[in-house]
């Protein structure tokens, strides 16, 4: 039974991806392009050369962080849609420390990362506090805070921290930046930090008693309360940690990839994170895989546009379709009728995959 459940949670996203690609191919064909060629360019762009492969990892790094951020909070039953705001606040703190405190070097880098974590955690704590004290809907609060954070960042790069004529901040000094793993490739230690965070989250959620309690709160708040778990404490904790993960992500992104705050920084990372966490069924390891997949689509999209003229926004559609189909698929396999039907025929799982769509 457990095996079948695991199988389903792999098959459903896989089927959604395939179906999304089929629809994407139809759109490409309708636009007068060649789907086969487009996919070939897509994968060449993502894996073709070591450099492309590195770019994909660079793109995946922030997505892993925001995905884990959404994942962690929702494990505790609260929806953190504010990943983007927390990510930005982390970046802002990092940028401020790195460019105005006049410090440089690896020590400064660690300090920057810490400040990013703290800033993200504080920004994440706000919806948590408002939820447990005033009973406010955490989704609305975190969304509103996203807009506030984005505007605050705009305020900084257009006036307070502006550097020169272009609306952007000064760049992080070379010595403070995250170093590359291999000097010839763009990928930095940021990806290692991201994977480490994923491993820690995975360990915490599934191998510690606190993690178990946190998940219990997420599954059934009432039961947890009667079991003596401090539900409010866990909600606040999950928000702070979730914010801190996003904040660290912002810090890593600024120190390793972007180096400065600029218009359009981090747009959409928060919602992407939520999408990834949902497709990954709130599993941290799966979130990493989905984030990587999203990054593949993105790096490949540019090559595809250059090579075939198919616009990159086709990729956005494919991504959006994956989430729509996957969530519908998960709901479908949970329906009582389908469940019975699945239980009725033990071994024929591959047949079901086709049936459910």
């Amino acid at each position, binding site marked *: 039974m457990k095996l079948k459940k695991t199988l389903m949670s792999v098959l459903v996203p896989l089927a959604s991806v395939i179906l999304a690609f089929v629809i994407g191919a139809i759109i490409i064909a309708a636009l007068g392009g060649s789907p086969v060629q487009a996919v070939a360019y897509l994968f060449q762009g993502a894996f073709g050369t070591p450099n492309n492969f590195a770019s994909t990892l660079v793109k995946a790094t922030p997505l892993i962080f925001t995905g884990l951020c959404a994942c962690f909070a929702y494990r505790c039953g609260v929806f953190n849609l504010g990943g983007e705001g927390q990510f930005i606040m982390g970046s802002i703190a990092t940028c401020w420390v790195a460019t105005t405190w006049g410090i440089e070097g690896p020590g400064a880098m660690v300090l920057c990362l810490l400040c990013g974590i703290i800033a993200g955690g504080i920004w994440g704590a706000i919806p948590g506090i408002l939820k447990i004290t005033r*009973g406010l809907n955490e989704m609305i609060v975190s969304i509103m805070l996203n807009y506030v954070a984005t505007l605050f960042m705009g305020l900084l790069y257009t006036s307070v921290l502006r550097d020169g004529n272009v609306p952007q901040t000064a760049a992080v000094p070379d010595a403070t930046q995250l170093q590359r793993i291999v000097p010839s490739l763009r990928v930095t230690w940021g990806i290692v930090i991201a994977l480490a965070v994923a491993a820690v989250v995975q360990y915490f959620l599934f191998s510690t008693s606190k993690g178990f309690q946190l998940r219990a709160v997420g599954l059934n708040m009432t039961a947890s309360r009667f079991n003596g778990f401090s539900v409010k404490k866990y909600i606040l904790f999950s928000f702070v940690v979730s914010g801190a993960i996003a904040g660290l992500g912002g810090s890593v992104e600024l120190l390793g990839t972007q180096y400065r705050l600029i218009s359009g920084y981090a747009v959409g990372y928060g919602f992407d994170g939520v999408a990834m966490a949902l497709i990954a069924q709130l599993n941290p390891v799966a979130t990493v895989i989905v984030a990587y997949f999203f990054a593949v689509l993105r790096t490949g999209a540019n090559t595809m546009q250059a090579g075939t003229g198919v616009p990159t926004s086709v990729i956005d559609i494919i991504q959006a379709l994956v989430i729509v189909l996957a969530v519908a698929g998960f709901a479908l396999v949970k329906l009582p009728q389908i469940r019975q039907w699945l239980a009725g025929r033990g071994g024929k799982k591959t047949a079901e995959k086709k049936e459910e769509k």
Partner: protein
Amino acid sequence: MDIGELILSTVRMATPILLVALAELYSERAGLVNIGLDGIMSFGALAGFMVCFITGSPFLGILAGAMGGILINMIYAYCTISLCAEQIVYGMAINIFAPAVASFIYRIYFGVSSTLAQDTLMKSIAIPYLKDIPFLGKLLFDQTPMVYFAYLMVVFTAIFFNKTKKGLNYKAVGEYPKAAETLGINVIRQKYVACMICGALAGIGGAYLTTCYVNTYSDGVVAGRGFIALSAVIFGRWSSGGVLLACLLFGFCDALQLRLQIMNTSTPYQLFQMIPYVCTLVALAAFGIKKAGPKANGKPYMREER
């Protein structure tokens, strides 16, 4: 600062939020929490803009916005009502899906680098006699027809939910679907109808932005108004009168921030742009009560389940 100008602009800014908040009200009264409003709005905004651009008629644009909204919301409806998918999760999926589709269609149709396409804005129509009321007449009765539509909808909604049998049946679905079903109300159908109304109103709210407010479409034109509308419903305690007041408050914040931007060009404009969002948070923190909505809000309804 010109007070009349400010009120005029408040009414204008409150209208899209009001339309969308009413959409959410219809949805939640049938027990469906739809947080995909932002997505529906952006699709409605695109549909409205395209049709208005092609035909030159803002009214057809509004109609297209409504149709587009229904279309998108039917995906949500099927998955949450028939497949019993979690409503919050699916609303989120719509929020990611619909803007992507809208932006894709816009780019395919207008190309990436073409000059900014502009459509015709809806003209305001003054209501005879009423517009001659000193001061207020100019402010309230010389607006675009969509503003009148929104306010008529508020009155209609209030009467519908409180004074008609159909409205009470509708509310029963959101409060206690099982009891409603035993009384012969077709819960599933009612929920689908709710989704259609919700999609249409939210789509109109989105189309309002591109046919009555600005004459261009850009990604992010909705700017979180769907979520502000969502909080307006909570803040307005699920009654149409309350929702109206909440929307006027948020509309006022929006109008005020625009005024302040124009008046103080030396202060960074982002500071003023934060006002509507911060105000929403403060209003919710001060007056938002969690347990006031329909009882079965957000719960999937399975007919066979006991």
